[in-house]
């Protein structure tokens, strides 16, 4: 029974274990930290309500200088930068709350912050030397300079490791960079870029550039040869600046190398692992906005002599939004708390992003449905929310790539013997008695999931990495187990504080049931797979 929690909650599921200690108790900020968070969130909400006009930003396809100045004056550009480097030193919980709060007002505006704090300067914070941090972070913290994260290239999207930008060492120790990055958020406004480029491996002098390992560089806009393109014309997040970043014989000093030479791909993955958690928080904010608008409309709009909220098919949509939001918050703030405790959260953060981005899309769509033709009209926010929500399932790891990661990481731990299949039943410790039925259901699903993992390994063996139909199902099952576990943890914490009222209990129950249905859908597909049909149909030419 004595298992460490260092591998999080999701990974041990693959061996049929419910890691109670990775979910319980639901993390809480101490009173002082919570007071600071609330004060920050209150200020940010008030500022955003007065200073940010999301419709105008969407329409103008740019964020007014006054809004960027406001973010700067509030100090938000330094929210998570350590205090010793001029930031506010806040952790992931506060960061997520702020992201959620700004996102509740404007998805474009929050993207500026996310690109700065979530990914743009994250490599410096995680891997920079103290001299590098002291040199660059204070001006980023004050908002005097803004950061961007430049990984993607025309030939390297999901397959980021295929990037072709090169950095060649010069005799004086400096580096010369050449390449072109595309779709870089904050591209038009950033003063500093985290750039990933291939560097020759001194141990393999004859290797082709495409085989060189990747390194990370901090490249300032002022460097000669760096240019950014005109803003992309996008479907959503229209106010957020997305541009090319071209590097033509850009020379940077030796100190511009962040982290160990040749370890850049690891840097990128680690930055994205934490960065994508912030996206989940943004999704909560936008989903709340859509839900609030739809609820108000459903209460007011009268058809057939009743407000439409009276009708069952509308109620299904409204209640689903509330339950999904409860679950999104549960996973996101559970994971945020674990991140602040420096616990392992790679797969949990991926589940948060996958779940929250897809539920936001559903909620935005349902909100529009509840609003009928009104929702289709551009003078209302619904269509903007829908457009803005779409990108979340694509960037910072597409949801397909995340599914591959979640499922394959777990299976590989089994293959390598890092996880040993559990022999006994799974038990979740710490769930309040009101949710016993849901706990029992979850406990019963875990051995079934472990059996599905074994089936996939038996069927596909060493080639399981490419067995995407199976990976898809396993990732969906794992995420459903995580979501229901997080919901049980959150509600049990409310129970422990005596704040679990009838409504929260209802929300927790419905949220669990929806997660269980997701599990059963994947399990059903496993029993009656369409895999062969799908493969045949997809690979046939349609000419």
């Amino acid at each position: 029974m004595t298992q460490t929690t260092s591998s999080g909650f999701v990974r041990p599921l693959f061996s049929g274990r419910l890691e109670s200690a990775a979910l319980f108790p639901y993390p809480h900020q101490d009173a002082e930290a919570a007071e600071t968070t609330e004060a920050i969130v209150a200020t940010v909400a008030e500022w955003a309500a007065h200073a940010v006009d999301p419709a105008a930003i969407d329409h103008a396809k740019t964020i007014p200088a006054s809004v960027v100045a406001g973010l700067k004056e509030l100090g938000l550009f330094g929210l998570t930068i350590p205090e010793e480097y001029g930031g506010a030193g806040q952790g992931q919980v506060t960061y997520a709350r702020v992201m959620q709060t700004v996102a509740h007002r404007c998805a474009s505006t929050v993207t500026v912050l996310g690109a700065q704090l979530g990914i743009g300067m994250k490599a410096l914070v995680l891997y920079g030397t103290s001299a590098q941090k002291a040199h660059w972070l204070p001006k980023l913290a004050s908002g005097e300079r803004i950061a961007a994260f430049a990984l993607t290239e025309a030939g390297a999207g999901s397959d980021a490791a295929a990037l072709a930008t090169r950095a060649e060492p010069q005799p004086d120790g400096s580096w010369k960079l050449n390449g072109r990055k595309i779709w870089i958020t904050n591209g038009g406004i950033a003063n500093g870029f985290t750039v990933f480029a291939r560097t020759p491996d001194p141990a393999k002098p004859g290797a082709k550039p495409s085989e060189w390992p990747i390194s990370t560089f901090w490249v300032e806009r002022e460097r000669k040869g760096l240019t950014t393109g005109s803003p992309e014309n996008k479907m959503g997040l229209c106010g957020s600046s997305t541009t090319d970043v071209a590097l033509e014989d850009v020379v940077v000093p030796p100190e511009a190398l962040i982290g160990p030479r040749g370890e850049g791909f690891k840097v990128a993955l680690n930055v994205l692992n934490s960065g994508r958690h912030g996206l989940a928080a943004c999704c909560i904010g936008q989903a709340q906005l859509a839900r609030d608008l739809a609820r108000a409309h459903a209460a007011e709009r009268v058809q057939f002599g009743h407000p439409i909220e009276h009708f069952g098919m509308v109620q299904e949509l409204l209640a689903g939004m509330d339950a999904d939001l409860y679950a999104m918050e549960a996973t996101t703030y559970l994971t945020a708390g674990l991140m602040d405790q420096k616990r392992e959260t790679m797969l949990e953060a991926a589940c948060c992003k996958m779940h929250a981005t897809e539920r936001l899309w559903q909620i935005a769509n349902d909100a529009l449905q509840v609003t009928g033709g009104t929702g289709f009209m551009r003078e209302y926010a619904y269509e903007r929310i829908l457009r803005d929500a779409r990108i979340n399932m694509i960037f910072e790891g597409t949801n397909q790539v995340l599914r591959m990661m979640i499922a394959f990481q777990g299976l590989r731990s089994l293959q390598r013997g890092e996880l040993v299949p559990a022999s006994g039943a799974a038990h979740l410790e710490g769930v309040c008695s009101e949710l016993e039925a849901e706990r029992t259901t979850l406990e019963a699903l875990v051995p079934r999931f472990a059996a599905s993992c074994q089936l996939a390994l038996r069927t596909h063996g060493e080639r399981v990495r490419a067995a995407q139909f199976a990976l898809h199902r396993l990732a969906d099952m794992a995420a459903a187990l995580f979501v229901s576990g997080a919901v049980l943890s959150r509600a049990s914490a409310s129970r422990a504080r005596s704040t679990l009222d009838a409504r929260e209990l209802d929300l927790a129950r419905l949220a669990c049931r929806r997660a269980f249905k997701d599990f059963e859908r994947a399990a059903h597909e496993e029993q009656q797979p369409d895999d062969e049909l799908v493969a045949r149909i997809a690979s046939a030419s349609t000419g």
Partner: protein
Amino acid sequence: MKIIACIKRVPTTDLQPRVAADGKSLDAAGVQYMTSFYDEIAVEEAIKQKEKHGGEVTVLTIGSAEASKEVREALAKGADKGVILVDNAWGGRDPLATAKTLAGKITELGADLVLLGRVGTDRDNASVGPMLAALLGWACVTDVVGLELGDGKGTARREADAGTETYAFALPAVITCQKDLNEPRYAGLKGIMAAKKKPLEESPCPPATSQVEIEKLALPPARKAGRIVGEGAAAVPALIDALRNEAKIL
């Protein structure tokens, strides 16, 4: 310059008020609180004057211990210390009782300038400022939209019905603030972090003997639902008829 800004914790302005079972007070359930709008202007002015002339800003309130939230907000914006005179029945005080308690504390703390909002957004009495000045025997200008301070004296502008009035006065003085005086700032992260380390004193409030008591609170009667008589020009005769014969306003 020693400046004291007096603030009051009041229900948020979007509150849908409900009368409590005693028929004399608001039902506290679900009520959210904020600093009274005009008191935020007073805090902003205090900080601005400090930034210009140097000195120290103390934020003073009578309220429950939870008022620390509003006081910390003022500290986060730049005030230097906070004082809460703890009275859990602060909402029931009459203006004179409030003014007397404030006058006692202000005398103890000492001040060159006391700033208050022109009116509390909960009760709309607009009385505490002038009463406080009378009790202290200090100069008082109300509804101020412009304030200049010099050596031991100042001038204050107020918008009256007839035009703008400018007053000269000697310090110490009591000023009540009107909304055009300034635009309150947002507390930045730095301020919020710094506020945690600023002194916040909580002391018991001397008992208040209100001379005016609330006998009864009642919500305004619900308005009757409107009626749309029709659309476009064709509806005009019906509208005129309704206004003349039903509403009897034509």
